[in-house]
C-alpha cells in the first residue's frame, strides 16, 4: 500500500457514488428499535421502484438524536425522518418521486444539530462503518500516511503537545505529555492500549464512536504507536458492546487486508498490530492499572501508582493508554494541524467534547460541542429542556465519579477546570439531566450503590467504606438517621476520598459530596431528632468513662 493506492480506492469509491443516498442508522440504539428491518425494506422498496442505479441505501453509524430512532435521512431532500417503522419504507421511497408522507420529520436546523461541532463524530451517521473504503474516501488513513512518511515520532508528539488535547477518559491529563513520557522511556517492547471499557451509567459516547467510525480509532492508535515506538496495540472493550466489538473486528480485518495494519505500513519500517480484549463486566477495569491486569489475564484489580503505565505497564513494559474519544481526535489533529485544533475550545481545554445526553430531557442523544459551551446551551437549547414543561433541577456529569451541578450554575462553561471547581468532573461525557421530581438523596444513594457493587474489594476504604456510606444514605432515606449519622457520612466521604487506592474509591464520594454541597436541605429534611442531644458527635467525651 502506497499513497496512490489509497487515493485510487477513494477515487473508485467517489465514482461509484449514486445520486441519492438514503442513510439509515445502524447503531445500537436504533437497531434495538428494528432499524435493520427498516433498512432491508428500504432496499427492497428502492429495488421494486427500479431506482437501484440512482439510489443508495446506506447503513450508517449513530445519527445522534437517539430518542427519535430509528432515524433515516435522505440527502437530496435534506430531510430527517424519525421513528421510521419497517412499514414506512415504501412510503418513504415514494417521496423521492414527489410523494407525500406522514412520517415524522426532524429538523436539521434545530439547535440540537446546528450548535454541534463535529470532529470526533464527523463520520458518524455519514459513512458505512463496516466498509473501509467509506472511511478512506472521507480522508481516512491520510493522517497515518502523513505521519509515517513525513514526520519523525518526536514531531508527532510535539504536534500533540501543541494541539493541547487532554485525555477524554475523564481526568483530562494532557495527551501530548503522556505520549512524550512513553516515547522517552527506553524499552525494546512498548504497548498502546485503547480503553473502551465505558461503564458510567447513562454514557454511550465511546460505544457510538466505535460503532460509527471504528477506523478513526484504529488510525489514532497506529499514529500513537508510531509516536511512542510501540508495535502492538490492544483495544479493551466491554462485553456489553457486542456490536462495537463486531465492527472493530471487521475494521481490523479490513485494515490488515489493505496493509494499513501489520508489517511495513505504507512501505515504512513501521509495524503495528491491534488485538481486541473483551472485558468481563467489571466497572473497575476501566481504571488503567486494573485494565492492564485484566489484559494480562489476571484478576482485574488496580495497583498503586507510581509506577505509572508510561514507565511500567502491560507485562512491565512502557504502555500508552488512552480512551476511545482521545484516539478518535488524533487523525483530524494531524490532518488539519495542531493549530487548527488549538483554536477550538477554551484556553486550557481544547477541541470538542462528545456528551451523551440522557435523563429528564426532551432530546436524548449524542452531541459534540466545543469546550467552553455553557451547560445551559447544551441542556436547554440543544437538549430542549425537561420534557412536559418540567423544570431542570440539576445536571449530573462524570457518572459515579462526578457530581450534580445545580440549575443555578447552568451558565458554567463546560471545560475540565470549571466542572472540577463545581465539585463535579468532566468525566467521560455522560450527562444526566434531572428535573424537580428527582430526590437528590436518591441520586446519591443510586451512585453509591453502584460503587458498592463495582468496588473490587482490594482496599478497605472503598470496599467497606462505600458499604457503610450506602447504609447511612439508606438510613437517611428511611427517615431513621440523625444529625450524627449525617456527620458520620461526611466524615466517611472525606476518608474514602483521601485513602482509597484507585480512582474508583477516591471519587466514589463525589455524587454524595456534591449533592450535600448544593442540596443539603434535602438531607436535613429527612433527619430525625437526636435522642442523645444536639451537640453529640458520636465520639465519647474525655471526661466520660468508656462504655466498652
Amino acid at each position, binding site marked *: 500500500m502506497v499513497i496512490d493506492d489509497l487515493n485510487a480506492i477513494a477515487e473508485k469509491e467517489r465514482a461509484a457514488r449514486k445520486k441519492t443516498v438514503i442513510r439509515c442508522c445502524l447503531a445500537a440504539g436504533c437497531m434495538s428499535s428494528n432499524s435493520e428491518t427498516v433498512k432491508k425494506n428500504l432496499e427492497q422498496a428502492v429495488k421494486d421502484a427500479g431506482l437501484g442505479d440512482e439510489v443508495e441505501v446506506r447503513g450508517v453509524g449513530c445519527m445522534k438524536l437517539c430518542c427519535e430512532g430509528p432515524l433515516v435521512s435522505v440527502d437530496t431532500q435534506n430531510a430527517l425522518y424519525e421513528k421510521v417503522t419497517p412499514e414506512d419504507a415504501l412510503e418513504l421511497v415514494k417521496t423521492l418521486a414527489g410523494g407525500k408522507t406522514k412520517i415524522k420529520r426532524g429538523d436539521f436546523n434545530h439547535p440540537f444539530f446546528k450548535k454541534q461541532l463535529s470532529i470526533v463524530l464527523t463520520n458518524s451517521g455519514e459513512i458505512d462503518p463496516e466498509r473501509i473504503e467509506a472511511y478512506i474516501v472521507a480522508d481516512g488513513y491520510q493522517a497515518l500516511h502523513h505521519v509515517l512518511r513525513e514526520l519523525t515520532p518526536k514531531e508527532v508528539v510535539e504536534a500533540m503537545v501543541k494541539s493541547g488535547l487532554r485525555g477524554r477518559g475523564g481526568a483530562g491529563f494532557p495527551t501530548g505529555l503522556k505520549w512524550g513520557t512513553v516515547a522517552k522511556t527506553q524499552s525494546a517492547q512498548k504497548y498502546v492500549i485503547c480503553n473502551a471499557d465505558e461503564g458510567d451509567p447513562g454514557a454511550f459516547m465511546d460505544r457510538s464512536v466505535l460503532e460509527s467510525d471504528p477506523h478513526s480509532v484504529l488510525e489514532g492508535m497506529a499514529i500513537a504507536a508510531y509516536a511512542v515506538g510501540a508495535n502492538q496495540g490492544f483495544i479493551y472493550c466491554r462485553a456489553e458492546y457486542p456490536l462495537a466489538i463486531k465492527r472493530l473486528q471487521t475494521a481490523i480485518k479490513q485494515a490488515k487486508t489493505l496493509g494499513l495494519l501489520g508489517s511495513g505500513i505504507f512501505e515504512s519500517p513501521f509495524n503495528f498490530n491491534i488485538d481486541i480484549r473483551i472485558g468481563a463486566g*467489571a466497572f*473497575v477495569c476501566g481504571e488503567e492499572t486494573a485494565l492492564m491486569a485484566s489484559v494480562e489475564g489476571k*484478576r482485574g484489580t488496580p*495497583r*498503586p501508582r*507510581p509506577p505509572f503505565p508510561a514507565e511500567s505497564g502491560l507485562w512491565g513494559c512502557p504502555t500508552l493508554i488512552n480512551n476511545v474519544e482521545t484516539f478518535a481526535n488524533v487523525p483530524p489533529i494531524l490532518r488539519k494541524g495542531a493549530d487548527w485544533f488549538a483554536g477550538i475550545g477554551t484556553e486550557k481545554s481544547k477541541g470538542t467534547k462528545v456528551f451523551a445526553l440522557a435523563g429528564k430531557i426532551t432530546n436524548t442523544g449524542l452531541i459534540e460541542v466545543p469546550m467552553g459551551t455553557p451547560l445551559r446551551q447544551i441542556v436547554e437549547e440543544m437538549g430542549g429542556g425537561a420534557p412536559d414543561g418540567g423544570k431542570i433541577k440539576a445536571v449530573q456529569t462524570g457518572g459515579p465519579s462526578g457530581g450534580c451541578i445545580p440549575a443555578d450554575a447552568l451558565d458554567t462553561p463546560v471545560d475540565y477546570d470549571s466542572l472540577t471547581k463545581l465539585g463535579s468532573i468532566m468525566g467521560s461525557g455522560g450527562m444526566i439531566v434531572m428535573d424537580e421530581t428527582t430526590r437528590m438523596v436518591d441520586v446519591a444513594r443510586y451512585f453509591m450503590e453502584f460503587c*458498592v*457493587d*463495582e*468496588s*473490587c*474489594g*482490594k*482496599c*478497605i*476504604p472503598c*470496599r*467497606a*467504606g*462505600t*458499604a*457503610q456510606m450506602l*447504609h447511612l444514605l439508606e438510613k437517611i432515606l428511611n427517615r431513621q438517621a440523625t444529625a450524627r449519622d449525617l456527620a*458520620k457520612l461526611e*466524615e*466517611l466521604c472525606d*476518608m474514602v476520598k*483521601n*485513602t*482509597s*487506592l484507585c480512582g474508583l474509591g477516591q471519587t466514589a464520594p463525589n455524587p454524595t459530596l456534591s449533592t450535600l454541597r448544593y442540596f443539603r436541605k434535602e438531607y436535613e429534611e429527612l433527619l430525625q431528632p437526636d435522642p442523645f442531644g444536639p451537640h453529640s458527635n*458520636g*465520639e*465519647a467525651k474525655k471526661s466520660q468513662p*468508656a*462504655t*466498652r
Partner: protein
Amino acid sequence: MAAKTLTIDGKQVSAEEGATILEVATDAGIKLPTLCHLDGVYDVGACRLCLVEVAGIGKLLPACTTKISEGMDVKTDSERLRKYRRMTLELLFAERNHVCAVCVANGHCELQTLAYSQGMDHVRYDYSTPKWSVDATHRLFGMDHNRCILCARCVRVCWHIEGAGTKNVSGRGAKATIISDLNQPWGDSETCTACGKCVMSCPTGALFYQGSTVSEMERDRTKLEFIVNAREKKQWLP
C-alpha cells in the same frame, strides 16, 4: 546502589535507592501500622493503614509500595492519619463478624493489636453482621470467612512462596471471598500441598489449625521470612 537521604518524622535517615518508605521507617525504629504487608511477601498497598504524608505531594501515599527519593520529607503520624487509621479499623470491625472473645486468634491477632495501638476503643458504625461460612473440610486447616479481612496475604504466599496457586480471590467488593481452587471445598483441593503457609500468614483468626480453640492460634511468622531469605539470598539465618 546510590544512597538516598530523607527525613522521616523529622529524623534524618539514609537508605539504599529502591527501598520503600516502610522499610526505611522500620529500620529507623518507627513503627507503622500495617495489615496487608508481610515480611517476605511482595506488597500490594491494599489496607491503606500505612498511608503517610509526604511534603509537596497532595495525596497520601502507602509507605509499603512507595519508593524513597532524595530529600523526601515523610510524616508518618498526624492527627489526620491517626483518624483515618482508626476509621479504617472501625470499618473492618463493622464489615464482618470479628468477635474477639470467641476467636482462635484472640491475643495473637494483628487486627486486635492494631485496634489497641491505634486507640480504636469502639466502633461507631452499624455492624453489618453478614452470614459467612466456615470451611473446615481440610484435614489440617480451617477457614472462617467471618474473620477474614481480605488482605490476600494467604493468596500471595500460596502463589509466590509455595507456588501452589490454591488460594485466590473471587467476587468483588464486600462480597469478595478467599477461595480454594475453583471455589471448591478446601479439603477437595488437588493443588493444595498442605504446607500451611497461608495459615502462618493470616493476620486474624480466619485461617487456623484444626483443633485450636479460643486464643490458641499462635503463628510463627518468622518462618516465612526464613524461607524467602534462604531461597533468594541463600542465607540460612535462624
